[in-house]
C-alpha cells in the first residue's frame, strides 16, 4: 500500500523577539499553535496527535516540557511525542508528524517547536564543565569558524561572501513581520565593518538569540480537501545523522547532509535541484553556511557555492532565492529554527509568504541541521499534490 500524501494545511508562528516576557512558555507555544489552527480553520478537537520539538532540556531547565505544555496544546487524551535532534529538531519534528500522517496512523497532526532562549542558558546548556577535560576554547561561533576558514581555503571564496549573505538575509527579514531582527537601513558597509568575533566570522554574520515558536497542521488528502486555503504538499522528507567527530568527517560538506538531500530529491523526483527547486530555506546560523550548504545540497557545484551567492541568484529576486524569510540569521529560537525553515518553504509554495513571497514558487526545500553538523533534516514541498 502506498503512503498517504501529506499536506501542510495550517502554519503559525509567534512574533519572535529577544525576550517575550509577556507570555509564559505555555503562552508562547499556544500563540503559534493557535495561528496554525486558525490558518487551517480547525479546532483543538480536530487534532489527533501532537508532536513537539525543542533543544535540550537544559536550555530552559524545564525537564520534559512536553508534559507541562500538554494543556496549552490541547493534547488531553491524545498521543504527545517529543523529538530531540539538537538544532535540527524543528525539521525532525515536522517529519515525524508528517510520517504519522503518511503511515495513516493519524489523519491530522499538530507539529510544534519552540525555544524561549531569554529564559535559558544556551551557552552553559551546551558546554558543561566536564571533569578531566580541557576547557572549551570557544562557543558555537568559535566551533564553526574554523570550518568556514576551511571552506574558504578549499574553494578560494573571496572574503566578502559572508557579508553578502548576511546583508541579504537581514534585508529579507524586513519583509517578514514575524522576524526577530528588523535592521532598517543596514548597509553592506555596516556588515563589513561589524566587529570580527571569531575570525573569519563577523558579528553581523551571526544569528541572534530569540524567543519563539512555530507550528504546522499536517493532514491527509481528506483534510487537505476540507482546508480553506491551498495546502503545501510534502513530496519528500528525510533525516540523516553522523558522529560529531570521526576520522574522515568532512566538516565543510558533511556526508549526512549530502545523503539526506539525495534521498529527498529521489523521493520527489528531483534530478536537477538547481533548476527544479524554486526557493530554498536553509539553516544558516552563520552567513558563510549559505554557500557551504548550497554545495552540500547539490544546488551549486562543488567549490561554486560562493559564485552563486556573488551572482545574486540567492537574492529574493534571483532565480534561486535562499532564505526569503530572513533565515536563522534574523530569527533564532533554536528549537523552532528548523521548523521555521520547513514552514517558510510551505508558505512559499502556498503563495502565502506575504511581502517575502517568491512569485510563482512551485517547489521549495526546507533544511535544518544541528549538533556539530551531526543531524540533518529536510523536506521538499510543492504546490501540487504528488502524483502516482
Amino acid at each position: 500500500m502506498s503512503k498517504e500524501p501529506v499536506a501542510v494545511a495550517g502554519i503559525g508562528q509567534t512574533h519572535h523577539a529577544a525576550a517575550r516576557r509577556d507570555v509564559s512558555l505555555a503562552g508562547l507555544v499556544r500563540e503559534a499553535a493557535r495561528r496554525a489552527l486558525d490558518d487551517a480553520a480547525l479546532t483543538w478537537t480536530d487534532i489527533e496527535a501532537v508532536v513537539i520539538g525543542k533543544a535540550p532540556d537544559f536550555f530552559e531547565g524545564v525537564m520534559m516540557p512536553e508534559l507541562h505544555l500538554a494543556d496549552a496544546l490541547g493534547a488531553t487524551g491524545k498521543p504527545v511525542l517529543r523529538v530531540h535532534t539538537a538544532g535540527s529538531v524543528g525539521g525532525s519534528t515536522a517529519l515525524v508528524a508528517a510520517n504519522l500522517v503518511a503511515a495513516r496512523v493519524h489523519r491530522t497532526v499538530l507539529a510544534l517547536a519552540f525555544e524561549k532562549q531569554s529564559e535559558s542558558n544556551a551557552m552553559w546548556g551546551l558546554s558543561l564543565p566536564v571533569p578531566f577535560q580541557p576547557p572549551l576554547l570557544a562557543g558555537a561561533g568559535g566551533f564553526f569558524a574554523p570550518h568556514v576558514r576551511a571552506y574558504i581555503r578549499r574553494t578560494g571564496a573571496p572574503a566578502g561572501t559572508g557579508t553578502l549573505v548576511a546583508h541579504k538575509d537581514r534585508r529579507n527579514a524586513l519583509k517578514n513581520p514575524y522576524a526577530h531582527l528588523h535592521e532598517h537601513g543596514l548597509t553592506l558597509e555596516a556588515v563589513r565593518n561589524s566587529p570580527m568575533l571569531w575570525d573569519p566570522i563577523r558579528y553581523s554574520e551571526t544569528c541572534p538569540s530569540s524567543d519563539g515558536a512555530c507550528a504546522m497542521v499536517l493532514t491527509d488528502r481528506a483534510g487537505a480537501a476540507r482546508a480553506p486555503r491551498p495546502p503545501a504538499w510534502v513530496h519528500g522528507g528525510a533525516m540523516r545523522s553522523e558522529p560529531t567527530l570521526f576520522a574522515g568527517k568532512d566538516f565543510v560538506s558533511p556526508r549526512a547532509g549530502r545523503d539526506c538531500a539525495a534521498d529527498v530529491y529521489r523521493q520527489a523526483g528531483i534530478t536537477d535541484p538547481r533548476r527544479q527547486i524554486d526557493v530554498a530555506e536553509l539553516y544558516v546560523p552563520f552567513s558563510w553556511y549559505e554557500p557551504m550548504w548550497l554545495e552540500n545540497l547539490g544546488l551549486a557545484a562543488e567549490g561554486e557555492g560562493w559564485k552563486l551567492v556573488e551572482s545574486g541568484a540567492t537574492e529574493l529576486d534571483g532565480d534561486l532565492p535562499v532564505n526569503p524569510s530572513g533565515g536563522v540569521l534574523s530569527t533564532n529560537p533554536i528549537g523552532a529554527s528548523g521548523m521555521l525553515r520547513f514552514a517558510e518553504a510551505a508558505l512559499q509554495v502556498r503563495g502565502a509568504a506575504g511581502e517575502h513571497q517568491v512569485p510563482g514558487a512551485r517547489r521549495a526545500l526546507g533544511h535544518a541541521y544541528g549538533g556539530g553538523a551531526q543531524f540533518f533534516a529536510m523536506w521538499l514541498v510543492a504546490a501540487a499534490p504528488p502524483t502516482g
Partner: protein
Amino acid sequence: MPEQLTAPLVVSFPFTRSLGPVQSAFLTGLRERVVLGVRAHDGRVLVPPAEYDPTTAEEIHELVEVGTTGTVTTWAWNPAPRPNQPLATPFAWVLVRLDGADTALLHALDAPGPEAVRTGARVRVRWAEQRTGAITDIACFEPHDGPETGHATPHHGTFTDPVTSLTAPARLDYTYTPGRAQTRHLGNLARHLLTGERCPSCRKVHVPPRGACPTCGVAATEQVVVGPRGTVTTFCVVNIKARNLAIDVPYVYAHIALDGADLALHGRIAGIPYDQVRMGLRVEPVWRDGDRHPDHYRPTGEPDADYDTYKRLL
C-alpha cells in the same frame, strides 16, 4: 587495568520564568496571603490555576479566591528532607484540596510523624514571614481543627506591583567517570604522552581515544603514540572573552592534526602573534607544571605542511 577516575560534576543554573497572566496573579496573590484558583469551563475550580482548560483546551481567565484551609487527598512521608525542601525536619508531602477548590495542590505538611498524617485530615496554610510571590510563600501546611468552610468567590486578580517573572535555581549533581579508554589516555597525558587508538577494521587512528571506532563501531584495542608534533589544519581568531576562561583575547583556537592521527583535536596556539598563525603551521604541545592537558601549542620552526598533506582532515 588502570584505576578508574571519578569526579563530581555539578550543573547549576538560575533559570528565569515569565509567568503569563494566570500564574502571575496566583503567585502575587500568595504574596498578599490570598490563594487564587481559576474556574474551568465545566465549573470546576482549579488550584493551582492553569492557563488553559485541561478538557477543552480553551483559555480560562475567571479567577476565584479559595480558602486557606483544606483537606489532604493523599500523602507520602518524607523521612530525610534534602537541602532546599520546604522543611528541614521530616515531613509529609501532601496533596491538599483547599476549601472551595476542586483540585489539589502539592505542598508539605508539618507533622510529628507519619502516624499523625491521614487522607482526609484537615490542614491550613502556614504563611512564610517573608513573601516574594512564589509557591514558598506558603511555608507549609499544618494540622487544622475545623470543618470545611468557604467556597470560591470571584476575584479581580489584580494587585499593585505584580510579580511577572521568577528565578528558578536548578542544580544537578553527577559523579563523572571518564571510562577506561579515556582514563588510560589521561594517565598518558600526565606523562606528557599523546596517545590514540587504531581501529582494527578501518585502521584509522582516533585521538583522543574513546574505546571504539565511531565509524565502524568495533572496540579499538591497539594503542598508538601520536605527535607530539602536528599541523594546524584550520583555526579561528577568538576576539570575545569567554566566561571562566583566563585567556586574553585575541587568541587562536585551532584544529591540530597530530602526526599519526587521522582527525584533528582542538587547542590554542601561542608563542606566535595571533595574526601570523596559518593553515599548515607546524606546532608542538607545551605543558605547564602539573597540568594534565597541554596548555597550548607553539610553532616548531619547521617549514609549513603542504595543503595536500592535511586537506583530507578538514
